[in-house]
């Protein structure tokens, strides 16, 4: 392994990493079109663009996952051309990929240390030391778990932290982070920024991909804006203001972007009537403790809390997929059969899961079939589906959500993350639900699409839906919700409405209870 570059970076240094005229085609898609990018030691470089712009693809080319069709990758002035990720890692190029890229069934410790486990005599793995090292490392990232548990038992956010810790804790010269914060809490984000600052100090170059613009401005030096696989802007981030950046990404002019504001929530809807959703006393051992909440039509209720607070579990419990020890759910006054997702869907409950890949998309199916999936019974007569009706609904939603695909028959696995998210949203909207449970709905979605999704949530609420919004993006949570219920350790610890409903308010509620119970 190579040693990290020790000295501080300065402008005169040669580029540490360079991508030159990279072209990458997939069957039918030109994902990268002569993309050039160069990084100096100690530079934190933002890579931004709409969903499907080619960010992840560029990263995969740099780390040897994909072979470029044209162009070359150079490391410290020499042609690198990594054959595979292992090759890249040996040369000191580490990446945290967008879809986490860990092995869910392996234990946390093994995931963290895979390939560099502490050894004993005979080269055998020293399990005890491995667990200690892992626990210690993770604790420094604010994650305290039993590292012997399989990774899958952690929430997405904690998994993300494990992936980060893994990438950063080896000798690296370049660290690439593809949307590392998409499911992190403010607190974890701070931890992460601390880490990045340290990397910068050690002369390590960082490529940082995120759809959260304020993060970019806080830590990035340079920026590359991609649109449809082409570089549309490159330079220092400080030279670009936010509006200009967004307009570059979206390819729209500044004036138009300005008129659209930060979040697209209008807050125009007014909750009314009897609650559609009433969840009472939801209890599941170790996970949920007597959680009750109600949502009225035209109301957006936010769920706040730290990672592992039980927000996802609450949503899953309502959707009938989490085995419950006690408690129940009614929709429009009618009880929903417990532990049956089918019954919940039929009652009008829709859950947009947080883990898109594992719980959302069906990768073998087309965009069309993915969209139609949950609504099939409605689109069929006597069990025979009507292609015409499906086509109509699919077309409607592909337009309405502006899903970027070669067509309805493109395999959904080929779409960019953001577009996959839109497909899932379309799947649920097609069922015409009464209650919409959104678990991190804008996770990994670009600014344009994010605004669209937010507007859509607004619009849906206005149209009479009851919405439960789970988001790690506090701004989104506060702006989007009429009311925020705060969870901790699987129990409700507070509720904020009206004037209390501010980012600070939510933070204090969480923090108060955390401190209170920490001892």
């Amino acid at each position, binding site marked *: 392994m190579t040693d990290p570059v020790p000295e501080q970076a300065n402008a005169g240094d040669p580029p540490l990493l360079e991508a030159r005229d990279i072209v990458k085609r997939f069957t039918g898609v030109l994902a990268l079109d002569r993309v050039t990018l160069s990084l100096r030691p100690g530079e934190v470089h933002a890579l931004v663009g709409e969903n499907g712009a080619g960010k992840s693809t560029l990263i995969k080319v740099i780390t040897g996952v994909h072979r470029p069709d044209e162009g070359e990758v150079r490391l410290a002035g020499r042609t690198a051309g990594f054959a595979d990720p292992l090759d890249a890692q*040996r040369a000191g190029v580490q990446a945290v990929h967008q879809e986490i890229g860990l092995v869910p069934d*392996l234990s946390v410790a093994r995931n963290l240390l*895979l390939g560099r*486990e502490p050894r004993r005599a005979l080269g055998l793995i020293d*399990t005890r030391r491995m667990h200690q090292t892992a626990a210690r490392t993770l*604790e420094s990232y604010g994650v305290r778990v039993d590292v012997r548990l399989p990774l899958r038992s952690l929430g997405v956010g904690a998994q993300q932290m494990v992936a980060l810790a893994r990438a950063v*804790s080896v000798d690296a010269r370049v660290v690439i982070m593809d949307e590392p914060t998409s499911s992190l809490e403010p607190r974890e984000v701070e931890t992460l920024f601390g880490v990045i600052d340290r990397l910068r100090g050690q002369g390590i170059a960082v490529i940082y991909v995120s759809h959260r613009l304020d993060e970019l401005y806080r830590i990035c030096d340079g920026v590359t804006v991609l649109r449809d696989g082409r570089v549309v802007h490159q330079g220092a981030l400080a030279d670009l203001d936010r509006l200009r950046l967004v307009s570059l990404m979206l390819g729209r002019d500044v004036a138009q972007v300005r008129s659209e504001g930060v979040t697209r929530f209008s807050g125009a809807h007014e909750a009314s009537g009897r609650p559609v959703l009433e969840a009472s006393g939801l209890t599941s051992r170790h996970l949920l403790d007597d959680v009750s909440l109600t949502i009225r039509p035209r109301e957006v209720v936010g769920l706040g809390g730290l990672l592992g607070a039980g927000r996802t579990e609450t949503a899953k419990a309502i959707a009938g997929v989490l085995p419950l020890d006690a408690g129940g759910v009614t929709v429009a006054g009618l009880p929903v059969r417990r532990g049956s997702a089918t019954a919940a869907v039929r009652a009008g409950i829709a859950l947009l899961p947080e883990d898109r890949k594992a719980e959302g998309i069906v990768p073998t199916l087309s965009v069309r079939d993915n969209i139609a999936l949950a609504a099939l019974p409605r689109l069929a007569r006597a069990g025979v589906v009507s292609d015409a009706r499906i086509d109509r609904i699919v077309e409607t939603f592909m337009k309405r959500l502006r899903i970027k695909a070669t067509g309805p028959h493109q395999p959904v696995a080929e779409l960019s993350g953001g577009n996959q998210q839109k497909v899932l949203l379309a799947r649920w909207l097609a069922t015409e639900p009464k209650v919409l449970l959104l678990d991190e709905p804008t996770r990994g979605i670009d600014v344009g699409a994010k605004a669209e999704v937010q507007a859509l949530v607004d619009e849906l609420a206005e149209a009479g839906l009851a919405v439960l919004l789970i988001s790690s993006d506090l701004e989104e949570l506060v702006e989007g919700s009429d009311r925020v219920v705060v969870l901790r350790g699987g129990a409700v610890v507070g509720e904020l409405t009206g004037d209390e409903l501010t980012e600070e308010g939510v933070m204090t509620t969480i923090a108060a209870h*955390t401190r209170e119970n920490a001892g």
Partner: protein
Amino acid sequence: MTTEQATADTPVTQDAYAPSRRDRTFGLIQRHGATAVLVLLLLVGSLSFARFPTGENLGDIAITSSFPAMVALGMTFVIITGGIDLSVGSVFALGGVLAAYAVRWGTVAGLLVPLAVCGVVGLVQGLLIARVRLAPFIVTLAGLLGARGLLLSISHEGATTYLIPHGTVLARLGQGHLFGLGYPVYLTLVLFVIGGVVLQRTGFGQAVYAIGGAEDAAALMGVPVARTKVVVYVLSGMLAGLSGALNAARLSSGVTILGTGMELDVIAAVVIGGTLLTGGAGSVSGTIAGVLLLGVIQNLINQIGDLSSSYQQVVSGAFLAVVVVAQTYLSRARRL
């Protein structure tokens, strides 16, 4: 490590994340469900049949199970990577025929030739699976046919059975006893211990699990996916060949009709042992329990005595169902 100092002011989480005792017991049973069922079955067998718990009978079960066990060891590795090896039955038979054929050049040849040839069979399969990216099921199905074809051509369409002469070291290896147990039993135990250590305590073992758990992620984490897969199939081929060779030594001859249908028994044993066919999870201790379970079931059916062959099959299928259901219930993972 480049991260030294931590931002560890207040930890985000509480001790709720430490597993409860219940969870840990649960995990223990989950990992050893097959063993639990095996113990149960041994108890039932001992109580029901006086002739069952004798040293001689148990010794018979041990030696009879040792050959499929070796094969199952290789299969465990294969299945944990998310693959499957249907060729093992044919390769097992091929190993035996080769050993009997090659023993004319000495015991070493009698062991090395089958190991080498069967290893090559595994290598070819592994390359086709890992490099050419063909489906393991199909590749090893072709291997099943190919290895059987090879065996038939060596033995003149099965007309010639090569013998392993009495008194050769090879024959003694297969037939010798120590404390009432055949040598192959000890060898099997040693192989399983090594297999367990390799799987749990080496980088290779970690790679095997990682590939089965999420192949793409494993590749992203820098696991040498293709190489590991190739090695796993070579291992499976060699273990099947070794098992066949030792079995031939025990039988003193390279019997040509062995091994048909063996692949399903072995796969069943591995899966009953708690290894997931989808890959990523499993253990060699489970596998040995699985193999013994099948052996004990067979033995118990014979203890019953006078069943016609058809009833034997029915009973054996029913037994299997009970065992499989029991094992599944015991090791049921919590979903979602």
